[in-house]
């Protein structure tokens, strides 16, 4: 499949760049349990890459490996052409990888605006004293960061909740704020952990539009995990399918859809 090597053009005419991230022979164990078994795949610059699979397939573990939260026992993670040493999650974030969580992880008592501003933290350079007296660099930085955040608020159409405490929002709005917070970091690679969990069809459509627009508008590379096959197939350029920690399929949505092993995994054929 030529899509796997180098640049390619998607069906809707977007040009996809070279390899941004590559996972080589990743194996992750928890004690005696092998959550991920010898998996390799890559993510190209500018594409929307999905990781799907039934419950317990190891999708979230994979995302946690990418974001530096889990460290695989075997295998290598390559980012922008360099092998990544073992890193703490905040170091990974500083490299330009941001993520959202399946169980929304923001501050309930803080306003939506303040929550999104936390996404800018990795871009703030002024020192503690400067921040405390709110003069000079700190003030200029805050204004510049606020401008970036306001553009994201406008982009995700959450102006009306700007001053609302995060905890008071509905679930679907929370998901949007979570996405806003991740976008505020201006990531090169955005990881979305089940962005549409618990949404109805209409809300899923809205979310899909935001994901597509993010990719289109900011050129952000997106890797997402999702349960809902339909949504994933419409949204992503290429799909990795996992089952019981193994990779059972990798390719465009059409290729994956016709893959017998994938069909079996989803229809629930008995495992030996």
């Amino acid at each position: 499949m030529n899509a796997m090597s180098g640049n390619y053009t998607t069906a809707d005419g977007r040009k996809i760049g070279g390899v941004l991230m590559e996972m080589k022979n990743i194996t992750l164990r928890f004690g005696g349990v092998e959550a991920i078994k010898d998996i390799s795949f890559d993510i190209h610059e500018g594409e929307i890459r999905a990781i799907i699979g039934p419950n317990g397939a190891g999708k979230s573990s994979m995302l946690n490996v990418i974001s530096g939260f889990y460290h695989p026992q075997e295998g290598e993670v390559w980012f922008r052409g360099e092998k990544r040493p073992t890193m703490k999650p905040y170091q990974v974030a500083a490299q330009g990888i941001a993520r959202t969580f399946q169980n929304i992880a923001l501050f309930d008592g803080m306003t939506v605006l303040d929550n999104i501003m936390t996404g800018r933290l990795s871009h703030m350079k002024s020192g503690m004293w400067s921040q405390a007296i709110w003069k000079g660099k700190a003030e200029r930085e805050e204004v510049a960061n606020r401008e970036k955040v306001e553009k994201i608020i406008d982009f995700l159409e959450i102006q009306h909740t700007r001053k609302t405490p995060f905890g008071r929002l509905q679930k679907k709005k929370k998901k949007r704020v979570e996405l806003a917070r991740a976008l505020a970091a201006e990531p090169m690679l955005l990881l979305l952990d089940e962005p549409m969990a618990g949404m109805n069809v209409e809300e899923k459509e809205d979310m899909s539009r935001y994901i597509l627009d993010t990719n289109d508008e900011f050129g952000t590379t997106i890797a997402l995990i999702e349960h809902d096959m339909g949504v994933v197939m419409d949204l992503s350029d290429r799909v990795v399918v996992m089952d019981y920690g193994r990779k059972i399929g990798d390719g465009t949505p059409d290729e994956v859809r016709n893959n017998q092993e994938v069909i079996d995994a989803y229809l629930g054929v008995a495992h030996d």
Partner: protein
Amino acid sequence: MTKLAETGVGDPDIREETLARSPAISDELSSIPRLLARNVAKFGGKPAYREKEYGIWQSWTWAEAADEIEALALGFLDIGLDPGDHVAIIGRNRPQFYWTMVAAQMAGGVPVPVYQDSVAEEIAYVLDHCGARVAVVEDQEQVDKVIEIKDRLPGLTDIIYVDKRGMRKYDHTHLTPYAEVQEIGRAARGRHEAELQRRRDALGWDDTCVMLYTSGTTGRPKGVVLSNRNIIETSRASAEFDRLGQDESILAYLPMAWVGDFIFSVGQAYWCGFCVCCPESTTTMYENLHEIGPTYFFAPPRYFEERITILTIRMEDAGPLKRWMYNRAMAFARDVGPKILDGKPVSAWDRFKYRLGDLFVYGPVRNRAGMSHVRVAYTAGEAIGPEIFDFWRSLGINLKQLYGQTEASVFITQQPDNEVRADTVGVPSPGVEIRIAESGEVFYRSPGVFVEYYKNPESTASTKDAEGWVATGDAGFIEEGTGHLRIIDRAKDVGKLNDGSLFAPKYVENKLKFFPNILEAVVHGANRDYCTAFINIDLTAVGNWAERNNIAYGSYQELAGHKQVMDTIQAHIEEVNESLSTDPMLSGCQIHRFLVLHKELDADDGELTRTRKVRRNIIAEKYDDLVNALYDGSDKVSTETEVTYEDGRKGSIKATLEIRDAKTFEVRPERMEAAE
């Protein structure tokens, strides 16, 4: 035109900025672009538009706005807009669209704002009917709709969009971003400036200012052509009436395709030179209203009801001290507030108490509602509940009613300060003449009367006669003594009872619907001996009551038939009867017998229109067994009704309904106040 000036309110206390005092409007001000030029010369540095973007209120002065408008008009010339071409505008209230309205006229075109939530089919009808050459739309959503129908619109050559988001992948053969059109215009200034000047100078009183499509409750929408004379004369007269000046500010949030928005945000704004503020998004309206604090405000009755509901719910959650203060202060305000507002005599002690209430309760409530600075507020469109109306007035907000139509450039009647009542729609606006026909239908004639329905001479002729009188389709009468107009009902629904007295069902139904427990009411009585009613209870309100009183119920039907519910509804009906009895013209409409329907009237069953208006004839036909029972004296009736579920399946409901007699009252011709 001199006659107009004479009929304006003769208040000497006119603020200096008010331009609306000149006896006749000079030809220098005979078009919107000319008004723009005057505003630039007079108030060039003052704000003309504000819009909240990225969390900050951005503003444009008159000079800046004129520059933007001119750039766009030049851009229109560059894409080949010819005089008389129509420019469709589809989007929410944003300065860019108001500029488009003016730029289109400046370039010799005709702006046609379209309801932004219309589906592609409805837009297709309007764009095809007016033969739009250019469509200026807001974003991807609107672009998609127009592209979907573009094949059927051979005249449409250009689509211009404001918001670039998600637009990159589109084929841009016929698509141009708004800012780019302005850039093109600025770059081509040398080539087109003289032509633009020529077209601008050619505009006069009788050129079309705007074309607005009526919402079309009956049949296809009609394009109402309004000239500069219509808009400017009406704006001037109404601005004088309420002494609007340059320092007003308004929040433009009502649909741009509605005539009211055009009069407030373009007509009066350009005549007076005041600032139009646009909300950040449709969902931030309340917040933006609070930030702007407009001085002049318009909203439909539903809006005022909604705000009270929100306030009441919040107060129920407040601490006991606050609740006590609120309840006491509001009870006092209901008595005294409207009197103070109307300048009636009030004792010094009461005035003092009202001040105190203002400090602790009324002021903060006004502030939260974004009404701290409101000098004039209007409501129109439907009847407003007297309690709702009085609530706002008792807070010291000068809320008034007006009666208008697209065909009249809005204003037919409006209430002068100090003569405000819930049950009338006011006196004729300056320059408007009113005539009541034999049938009771209201006719008017004014400088604001529309030119024609576009490409529809038959409808024009049947609505407007040779002398310029226009039929409103509403029945009403001028109240003796005060000269106020009272609207009773749609003319075609008004009938007679067998004893010859007037039957106005909607008037009575509206009175009934003001009770929160009553969701819908259908009154029968045309060509009968007396009036009867079907009632629909409001499940939210009655259900809430049932919960608080530990009344168990399994279904809507069961709750509707509950004895205590029937008692409550009977009390409401008798209250309405008592109030009707004080009105000699409508006392015949008292309800003698009623029943509570076993199902909610529903648009899916064809009983209501999609905008929730009662379809009288269909209901009378479908429930004719119930109607007969109301008139044959029986005290209960068994019935079976077919219903349509939301997924389209059909089923039926069987029920036995109780019929009750309601107490009626002797006619007492005095007004209530007099009787007390």
